[in-house]
C-alpha cells in the first residue's frame, strides 16, 4: 500500500543533523489540529502545520494539513531517519529537499559579537502588549491590564529569579525557576512561556558576551523549570536551556539586539505575540521583563 506522503519544507537544523546520524524510534505523544508531537529516543519532535513558526526540534509541512483528520493517534509507532519520519505504516513525513533552519542563539549571535550587550529599548514590545495583551495570561506583569490568580502568584516570585540570574547563582536560579514554572491555563502554562522569553534574552546576552557562568546559570534554571511542568511545555524549556529558541522569537531578538528600527521590531513582536491563545503574549512579556527588570545591561 502506498503511504500518504506529507512533504516538509523546513526543519530545525539541530533536529535534521541528529536524524542524519541516528534512527530514533518512539510513539506519537499527542495530536492537535495543526501539530503532532512525537516522543522519541532523541527527545520530543514536533511536526507543525504550514503557517506556524518553526520551533526547536520541529519541522513544518509544506501544505496545510489537519493532523486530527489524518487518523494519527496517541501511541502510534514512530520511526525516523534523515530521509523522513514514519507515523504508523500509512503516513510518511518526507524530509526530502528540506530547508534547514538554524535556531540556535549561537548561530544568530556569534561568541563575542558584542563586547557588552546594551539594554535594548522595550517600548515597541510594550506597545504590542498594550494592543493585544491578554488578561488571562501574564501580560499584566508588563503592562496595565486586569490581574488574575496566576499573575498574583507569580509576581512576588520574579524578583528572586532576577536576583539569582544577575548573581549568576545556579542553585538559587533553579529554585526560583521551579517556583515559577507550570502556572497558567494553557497547554504551555503561561509562566513557562514567560520563562522561555526571559531565558531566551538571557541566552543572547550570555552568548554574545561569552559569559559562560551566566549561560550555565540559565541552562540549569531552564532545566529545573522543565521538571516542574508537563512534557510538551518542558520540551521548550529544555531547548532554551541548550540555546535553541523558536524561529519567530530568534528573529525578534536579532532585530532587537542588532538595533533595527522600531517598526520592524514591532512587526516581529506582533508575530511572536500572535501565537496561540496567550503563549505569544506571555513569551513577549518574558522578553520585556528580562530587559526591564534585570540590571545586568550596559546602558546606552
Amino acid at each position, binding site marked *: 500500500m502506498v503511504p500518504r506522503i506529507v512533504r516538509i519544507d523546513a526543519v530545525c537544523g539541530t533536529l535534521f543533523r541528529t536524524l542524519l546520524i541516528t534512527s530514533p524510534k518512539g510513539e506519537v505523544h499527542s495530536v492537535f489540529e495543526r501539530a503532532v508531537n512525537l516522543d522519541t529516543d532523541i527527545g520530543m519532535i514536533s511536526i507543525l502545520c*504550514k*503557517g506556524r513558526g518553526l520551533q526547536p526540534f520541529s519541522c513544518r509541512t509544506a501544505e496545510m494539513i489537519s493532523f486530527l483528520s489524518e487518523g494519527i493517534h496517541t501511541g502510534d509507532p514512530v520511526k525516523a531517519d534523515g530521509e523522513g519520519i514514519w507515523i504508523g505504516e500509512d503516513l510518511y513525513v518526507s524530509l526530502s529537499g528540506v530547508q534547514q533552519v538554524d535556531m540556535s542563539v549561537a548561530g544568530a549571535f556569534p561568541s563575542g559579537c558584542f563586547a557588552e550587550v546594551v539594554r535594548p529599548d522595550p517600548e515597541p514590545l510594550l506597545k504590542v502588549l498594550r*494592543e493585544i495583551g491578554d488578561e488571562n495570561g501574564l501580560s499584566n506583569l508588563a503592562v496595565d491590564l486586569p490581574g488574575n490568580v496566576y499573575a498574583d502568584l507569580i509576581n512576588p516570585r520574579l524578583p528572586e529569579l532576577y536576583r539569582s540570574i544577575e548573581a549568576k547563582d545556579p542553585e538559587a536560579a533553579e529554585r526560583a525557576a521551579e517556583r515559577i514554572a507550570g502556572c497558567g*491555563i494553557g497547554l504551555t502554562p503561561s509562566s513557562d512561556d514567560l520563562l522561555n522569553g526571559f531565558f531566551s534574552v538571557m541566552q543572547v546576552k550570555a552568548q554574545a558576551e561569552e559569559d559562560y557562568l551566566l549561560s550555565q546559570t540559565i541552562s540549569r534554571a531552564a532545566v529545573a523549570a522543565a521538571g516542574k511542568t508537563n512534557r510538551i511545555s518542558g520540551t521548550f524549556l529544555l531547548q532554551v536551556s541548550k540555546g535553541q529558541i523558536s524561529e519567530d522569537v530568534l528573529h525578534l531578538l536579532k532585530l532587537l539586539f542588532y538595533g533595527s528600527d522600531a517598526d520592524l521590531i*514591532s*512587526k516581529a513582536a506582533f508575530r511572536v505575540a*500572535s501565537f496561540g491563545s496567550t503563549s505569544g503574549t506571555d513569551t513577549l512579556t518574558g522578553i520585556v521583563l528580562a530587559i526591564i527588570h534585570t540590571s545586568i545591561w550596559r546602558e546606552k
Partner: protein
Amino acid sequence: MVKLEIRKNAYYDSVTLMLISKDLKKLDGVKEALVGMGTDLNVEIAHNIGLATPEFDANVTSNDFFVAVECDSEEVFEAAQKKVEELLNKKSEQKESTYYPPTLEGAIKVDPDLNMAVISVPGKFAADVAQSCLDRDINVMLFSDNVTIEEEKALKEYAYAHELLVMGPDCGTAIINNIPLAFANVVPKGGIGMVCASGTGTQEVSSIIAQLGEGVSQVIGTGGRDLKKDIGGLMMKLGLDALINDPNTKVITLVSKPPAAEIASMILDIAKDAGKPVVVEFIGGDPKEIEAKGLIAAKSLEDAAHKAVALLRGEPLKDYVDFTMGNDKAEAMAKEIAGKMAKSQKYVRGFYTGGTLCDEAMKLMIDKLGHIYSNIPLHAEDKLENARTGPSKEHTFLDFGDDEFTVGRPHPMIDPSLRAERVITDGKDPECAVILCDCVIGYGSHEDPAADLSDAIRTAKAEAEKEGRYLCCVVEVCGTEGDPQCLSRTQKKLEDAGAVVLPSNAQATRFVERVLANLK
C-alpha cells in the same frame, strides 16, 4: 461542593483550554472553576482559591489535564463535565461560543474551516497578518491602510499564485456569499457579480441594483491601487476569473477609477472572452476602448447598475441619464429653486463622506463648471489648500474621508459631524447656491448619519433665509431598504429638513447642474 475531573496524560491546546475555562464559569450553579495541566503551581492555585481536594493532591500530575469546579450540586458538575466534553470534541459547537479569540491561531481553533479573514490592524502590522492568513490558505480582506505598495505587491503575487483573494489594502467594501463585509449594504442574492476597486462606488452600484429589485452573487473588492502598473490588476484578474467561472453570476460589473492603459487593456481582454455580459465603469474614463472590445461602458455608477440589471433581465440597453421623478418634474423643480435665489448665489459646494462619490460627482460636472476646487482635485491647479480649516473657493468639492480630514478622527461615514459643521459654515457664504452631500448608510456607517446632516441643513437654510437667500441642499442617499438605517427612513428625515433627496449620485449632480443653469 468541590468536584474534580482528571484526564491522565491528556493534552489539549491552549485555545481549547481557554474556551473551557471561560464557558464553565458561565454555567448556572458554578461558583468557581479552574482548568489546566496539573503542575505544582496550578495545584497551588487550586488550593489558594479553595478548589483542591485530597483526591486532587493524590492523583494529578504535570501531564494530566484537570477540571476543578466549585458548584451547587452533582447535577451542575455533570453539566460542567458535559460542557467540557462538548468543547473538546465538537468543533461545530465551538463556532457558537461567545469566546472571541485574540489571535489568528485562536480563531482557527474556534473554526478550523474558516477561509476568509477581515484584517483591521495598524498598517505596519497588516502585511504580516495578511501573509499569515495566506499561509493558511485563508482569503484576506485587508481593511487596513498604510500598507506599502511593495508589501501589497508581494501579498498579491503570493495570493494570485495560490488562487487566494487579497481584497485591499484599504478595501472597505465586499459582499461574499451574501455576507456584507465592513462598509457594505444589505443587498439580496442575485445574478450580478462585481469586482470593484472603489469603496463607496461599490456601495452605490450594489445599492442601486437592490433598489431596482435585483441582487448580487459576489462583490469582490480589490483595493484602490490594484489597477496601478505596480500591482498589475492581479486581484481584478483573479476576481474576474472567479466570476466568469461562477455559475450563479450571469452578468459581471467592473468598477474602478481609470486604470493604467496597459492594465485596462489586459483586463478588458479577459472580460471580452468572459462568455457572459460585462459592464465596465472606469469612472470618468474614456469608453471607446471598452466599447471597441464589445463590452458595455457605463456613463456613471448609476448607469452601470441600470445596465447590469437590464442585461440580467434581457431588456434593451440604453444610457440612464434621466431622473427617477421624471425629467420634466426635475427641470421644473430646479427652475423654481433657482428662481428663489439671490443674485450673489453662484456656486455649488459638494461635501462628501465617500471618496469615490466625490470623485464621480466632480467628473460628471467638470465640463459644465470648468474649475472645481478640492482636496482631491481633478486637476493639480485646482487643489484647495488648507481644505479642512480654510474657506471654500467658488465651486468646491471636499472628500471628508481623505487623510487631511481624518487625522485624529474616525472616518466621516462613522462620525459625520465635521461635514455637518461645514454645511453650516458654507451655508453662510453669500456666494453659495447649492450644497450637495452624500449620505451613505449600511453596515459600518454611523447608526443615523441623516440626523446630524438634517440638523445642519435645517440650520444652514434658516440662516440663509434670515439673510434673504435661499439655500438649496441636495442629498443622495446611498443604501438599501434592508440596511440597519433604512433607505426610506433616511430619505424622509432629510426631506423633512428641506433637502432635495435623489436616489443616486449621478441624479444629484444632474439636478445641481439644472439649478445652476437656471440661475439668474
